[in-house]
C-alpha cells in the first residue's frame, strides 16, 4: 500500500459499504421479520404470509446475498488499490 491517503480512502469506502449492507441486513431481518411483521402478513404469496415468510425464510436468503455482495465489492476494492493477494500464499 502506497500512501496514507490511499489507505484512508480504502478504509472510508469499506465503512461506507458496511453501513449500507448492515442497514439492508437490519431491514430484512428485524424490520420485515419482527417490527413490521403484522403489516406484511396481510400480503400473501402462495401459502405464505409475507411477514412470516421473511421471518422464517426470506431473512436467511437475504443474509446470504448480503455476504456475497460484500465479497464482490471488497474484492473489487482490493483490486483497485492494487494488491494481489492470490500471488502471496
Amino acid at each position, binding site marked *: 500500500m502506497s500512501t496514507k491517503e490511499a*489507505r484512508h480512502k480504502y478504509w472510508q469506502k469499506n465503512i461506507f459499504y458496511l453501513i449500507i449492507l448492515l442497514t439492508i441486513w437490519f431491514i430484512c431481518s428485524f424490520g420485515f421479520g419482527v417490527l413490521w411483521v403484522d403489516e406484511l402478513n396481510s400480503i400473501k404469496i*402462495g401459502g405464505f404470509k409475507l411477514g412470516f415468510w421473511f421471518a422464517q425464510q426470506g*431473512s*436467511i436468503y437475504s443474509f446470504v446475498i448480503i*455476504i456475497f455482495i460484500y*465479497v464482490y465489492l*471488497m474484492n473489487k476494492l482490493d483490486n483497485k488499490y492494487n494488491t494481489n493477494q492470490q500471488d502471496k500464499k
Partner: protein
Amino acid sequence: MDIQTWTYIIVGLSFTLYIGIALWSRAGSTKEFYVAGGGVSPLANGMATAADWMSAASFISMAGLISFMGYDGAVYLMGWTGGYVLLALMLAPYLRKFGKFTVPDFIGDRYYSNVARTVGIVCALIVSFTYVAGQMRGVGVVFARFLEVPVNTGVIIGMIIVFFYAVLGGMKGITYTQVAQYCVLIFAYMVPAIFISIQLTGEWLPQIGFGSELADGSGTYLLDKLDNLHKELGFSAYTMGTKSTLDMFAITLALMVGTAGLPHVIVRFFTVPNVRDARMSAGYALVLIAILYTTAPAIAAFARTNLIETVSNAEYSNVPSWFKNWESTGLISFTDKNADGKIQYVADASQNELTIDQDIIVLANPEIARLPNWVIALVAAGGLAAALSTAAGLLLVISTSISHDLIKKQIKPDISDKAELMWARIGAGLAVIVAGYFGINPPGFVAATVALAFGLAAASFFPAIVLGIFDKRMNKEGAIAGMVIGTLLMLFYMIKFKLQGFGGGTEEEWWFGISPEGFGSVAMLVNFVISVSISRFTPPPPAEVQAIVDTIREPGD
C-alpha cells in the same frame, strides 16, 4: 433389514471414515494443530465452519422447537444465521489479517495487556465448556435411542472418537473430519425432509412445499390448514407469535451477536490462506448453513401437521408403533384424564393429555411419516455427526486456550514448538474427559447454559473485538472494564431469572420485559457504552498498538 441393523451399518461406516481422516491428517506442528497450517481452501473451511456451527441443538432440537413455537421460532432461524453477516463484515477479514491463532491472542495484543488476555481466556473457557457438555449429552441420547445402549456408554464411545481425531490431528484433523461430517449431516437432514414434502404437498423442495397446497386435493394451503388445526385445539395460530415484539427483537439480536462472538466459530477463519479467502469462506459457510436452516421451518410445519393429524382424538389402543417406542423413552407421555381411551391434545393444560418432547420432531419424523428404515438410521448418523463436529471444534478452543494463551503467552514464553504441541494434546485430552464427565453427569441447568453461552459471547467478545478494529482510540482500560461488567451483568441476570439466585424473579419482573435469552443484547450494549466512555477518560493506546490497528485496516494480506 430392521432399524437397528441399518443404524449399526451407517453409523459404523461414518465413524470409520472419521477415524481414517484422523489418521491421514495428523498434525506435526503447533501451526497445524491450531490453524491447520493456515492453508485450508475457502470451500473446505466453509463446510467445516458449517459443521462446527451446526450442533446437536441445530440438528436435533431446532425444528422441534420451531414446531411448538410457530412464528416465534424465527428467533433461532434469524439469530443463528444473521450473525454470519456480522462475522463476515465486521470480524472475520480483520481478524484473519491480524493473523494470530486465537481470540485471546487478539484481545491480549490489541489491548496490550495480559489481564485482558486472561479475561479473554476465562470467557472462552466458560463459553466452550457450557456448550460442549450439551454436545456430549446429545451423542449419548442418539446412541441410547437408536443403538439401545445406555446413554453413558454412548457418551464414552463419542469421547473415544473425538479424542482420537482432536488429539491426533488438532485443527487439521478436525477440519477435514468436519468436511465429511457436514456431508453426512446435511444428507441426513434433507432426505427425510424431501420425502415428507413430496408426501404432503407433492413438491420435492421443502422450502417450496412449506408454502404450497396440500396434496390431498383439498386445495388448502399447508400453513392455513395448520393455523386452523391450531385454532380448533385452542393453540394460537401457527403463523402468529405470542412473544412481545421487544423480546423477539432482543433474543434475535443476542443470538446473532453471540454467534459472531463465539470463539470456536471465529478461529475457523484463521485457517484460510488470506483475507480474501476469509470473506469468501464466510459466504460459503452461510450458504451451507442456510440449506439446513431454511429446511428446518418446513420440517417443523410438516411434522406439526402430521403429528396433530395422527394423534389428535386418536384411539390410544390404535396409535402407530412409533408412539409406543418413544413412550418407552419417556419423551412422549399420555395420561387419559377423562378416561375415554382417546388422546386429547389441546392447549388447555387441565384437559390436555399428551406431552411431547421437542427433540422427537426430528428424530421420530421419519417414523411418523413412515419412511424406510435406512432413512431413520441416516438421521441417527446425522445427529451424531452434528454433535461430534461441534464438540471437536469446542475442544480445540479449550486446548488452545491452555497451551497457547496460557502456557506459551504467559507462563513459559520460551517453550519449544514441540513441547507446546504436547501441551496442546494434553489440553485436548483433558478437555475431552471433562466434557465426557459433564455429558454423563449433566448439570441440571444445561438448557439455561446454552442461552448463557450466547449471552456471554455477546456481552464479552463481540464489543471488545469490534471496538478493537473500528475504534482506534479504544484502550485496555475501556475494553477490560466493558468485558468484565458485561459478563458479570449477564451472569447476574441469568442466575437471578434462570436459576433463581439473588432472590430469584418471575417473568413479570424481567427488566424491560426482556427474557434471560435476550438479555445478552442489553449486556452487550452496556459493554459498548462502558468501554467507550471509560476509554475517553483514560490514556490512548500506545503508538505501536495504533499501528496494529492501521495494519488491520489496510488492503492486502
